Structures are given as structure tokens and as C-alpha cells.
């Protein structure tokens, strides 16, 4: 039996090899690749958005966790809410943690719920250590009505963070736009006093097709009625 010895001989070898190298050089390299992968993972999730609409925060986070595991990350999931961040990734001494919150949905969660996630991430779970100064906040948007688009929710959330500039020392915001959907904030961590960077990642879960067959389909009827009533 013969098997090659080059990167060319295995479909996944290049990606796996680069993941190995990224975690060896610097924390910033590790974070850069992690966000590149998360961008890919969330974009694939958007392709199958129908699957995630009825899922809970934990169930949606589990999908992200599973995808990170398949990419050979040292990912951990806290499904029991037992005092840990929702998804964390540990690679030797490098650490990244994240919280996930739903906006909208059956419980009609608003910005206070997102803010609770931001506070858990920045004041409860993170300690701002030297190789752990990046964190993520997943915002699973389940639009209640026409006014809740990914953009409007992120605009509203950005305004709420801006209103906290006196509580968040040295707050800097890098806003979202057409080609970069996430929002990045940086402020002095309350434990370390050094900057802590949060990437706020929206995943908008709406699937109400308006074509003929979509309008006829029974499975969308209830959700469409509710969506229209709230619009």
C-alpha cells in the first residue's frame, strides 16, 4: 500500500498544517485564523438557516462548537450554564471565550438580553489575561417583525454600547457595514486594566420565502402571521 508524503497527497492536509502553525506563533495569529474559520462556519449556517430557526441558544451554539471541533480546535461547550462561557477555544496557553444570546424569538428578547451576555463575557468569564484578551459575542437574531433586520439590530446594539462609554473605559468601536457584518469593541478590562477586544457576531435567522410556493407552504404560516402582526 502506498501513501504520499506531501501536503498535496491529502485534501485536508494544508488546512490542518496551517492550523497547527497558527497556534504556535502568536496569540494574534491564532485569533486571526479562528475568526476566519468562524466567518466561514457562520456563513455555511446562513445557507441552512431554516434548520436553526427553532433552536435554542445552546443548540445553535452547539452547531458552532461542532464545526470548530471538526476543524481541530480545542473547543469546549458549556451546555449546562454551570458558570462557564458558552463556547471556549483553548490552544495551549491561548484562550478565546464567547457568549451567545438570542435577540427576538418567542421570548421577544431585546438589547438588555444581549447586554447581559456582553456583561457575562467581559466581567464574569474573562479575566483579560495576556493570551486571552479576545472574546466573542454571538447574537442570534430571530426577527420579530419587518423592523428587525441584521442591520437594524446591530445598529441598535451599537447605539446601546455607545451609550455606555462612561462605564467602559477607553471604549473604541469599529462598526459593522455591508462587507464586514460584525462589530468590534475594545475597552479596558475591569480586572486586567488592559484592552479587551470583543467581536460581536450577528447570525440572522429568518426564513419566510415570499415566492408562490413559500406563501402556500403551511409550515411558514404561523411564523408569517406573527411576523406580519409585529411589522
Amino acid at each position, binding site marked *: 500500500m502506498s*501513501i504520499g508524503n506531501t*501536503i498535496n497527497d491529502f*485534501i485536508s492536509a494544508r488546512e490542518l*498544517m496551517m492550523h497547527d502553525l497558527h497556534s504556535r*506563533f502568536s496569540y494574534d495569529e491564532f485569533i486571526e485564523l479562528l475568526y476566519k474559520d468562524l466567518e466561514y462556519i457562520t456563513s455555511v449556517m446562513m445557507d441552512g438557516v431554516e434548520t436553526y430557526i427553532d433552536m435554542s441558544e445552546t443548540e445553535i451554539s452547539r452547531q458552532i462548537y461542532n464545526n470548530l471541533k471538526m476543524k*481541530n480546535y*480545542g473547543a469546549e*461547550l458549556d451546555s449546562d450554564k454551570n458558570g462557564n462561557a458558552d463556547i471556549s477555544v483553548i490552544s495551549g496557553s491561548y484562550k478565546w471565550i464567547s457568549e451567545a444570546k438570542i435577540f427576538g424569538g418567542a421570548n421577544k428578547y431585546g438589547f438588555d438580553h444581549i447586554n447581559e451576555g456582553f456583561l457575562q463575557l467581559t466581567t464574569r468569564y474573562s479575566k483579560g489575561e495576556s493570551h486571552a484578551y479576545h472574546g466573542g459575542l454571538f447574537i442570534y437574531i430571530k426577527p420579530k417583525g419587518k423592523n428587525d433586520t441584521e442591520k437594524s439590530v446591530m445598529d441598535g446594539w451599537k447605539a446601546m454600547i455607545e451609550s455606555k462609554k462612561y462605564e467602559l473605559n477607553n471604549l473604541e468601536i469599529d462598526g459593522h457595514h455591508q462587507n464586514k457584518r460584525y462589530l468590534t469593541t475594545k475597552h479596558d478590562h475591569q480586572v486586567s486594566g488592559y484592552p479587551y477586544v470583543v467581536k460581536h457576531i450577528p447570525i440572522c435567522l429568518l426564513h419566510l420565502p415570499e415566492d408562490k410556493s413559500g406563501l402556500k407552504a403551511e409550515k411558514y404560516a404561523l411564523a408569517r402571521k406573527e411576523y406580519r402582526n409585529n411589522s
Partner: protein
Amino acid sequence: MNNIFHLYIVKIHKHTFGRNDASEINYSCKNILNEIIEQNNLSKDSIFNYSSLFKKSKLKEEDKDVFIQSVYVLAHINVKFLEQRFHYLDSAGCWEEMDLENIFQSYKENEFYNPITHEKINEKKFNDIVLPYFCPTEELISLLKGVRQ
């Protein structure tokens, strides 16, 4: 020796927990682990390439993807059983070690040079010249040394 084997098995299982292909990867890792730990003359200079590791994995050729995944599980910094390095055959026919940071930058910038002629080449050609290989980690060697003394 058993303790060392179990230490790494625990690390591997923790690392692969939650993967759809965990049982296949664990099987391959276990076989590679077993063969390497039992090797009498194992040292920091021992070298394993993809094909020698594949033989140890006891997988079939159609399981190439499971195999490559298991190699990088063993090399993951949270498992620390193998360490990835790179080398090429120089004009005198001797293996020359490549600097890891150079390798990393080449792939990151998508810019590749022939390490012998220094001419610009494409990635496929670079991959044919510069080959990855794996060594036991210092942690593994030090654990084995402790048991053998």
C-alpha cells in the same frame, strides 16, 4: 509505559470529544500512539513522515482523511504527542531543516520559493519539494525517560 499511554489517550479523547468522526480518529491515534511509545530507540531525533505514520495507524487507504485528521490531533498543542516540522532534500542529497516561521509566512502570503534555487515557484511545486515530518515532543521523550530510568 501504560500510564503514559493512558495520559495521551485521555488527552486525545478530550480533544476529539464532540466530533462526528471521533471513534475513527481515536482508533487511528491509539494505534499510532501504541507503536511509537513501544519503540525502543525513540528519541527527540526520531522522524515520522505521513507514510510511516499511516502504517502505524492500521487504517485502509480509503480512510486517508481520517488518517490525516488523526495525525494533526496528535500534533495539536493540547495533545502534544507529535511535533510538526519541515525539511527538503538539498542538492547533495541530505535532508535540510526548514525554518517553521518561513514556512508559515510562505503559506500565509501565498508566496513560495524553491529552497535550493531560490526561484519563485507555485504552491504545488513547493509542496513536492518541502515535506512535513513529525518528531516526538519533548514532553513525550521526557515522560518515557522517566519510566525507563
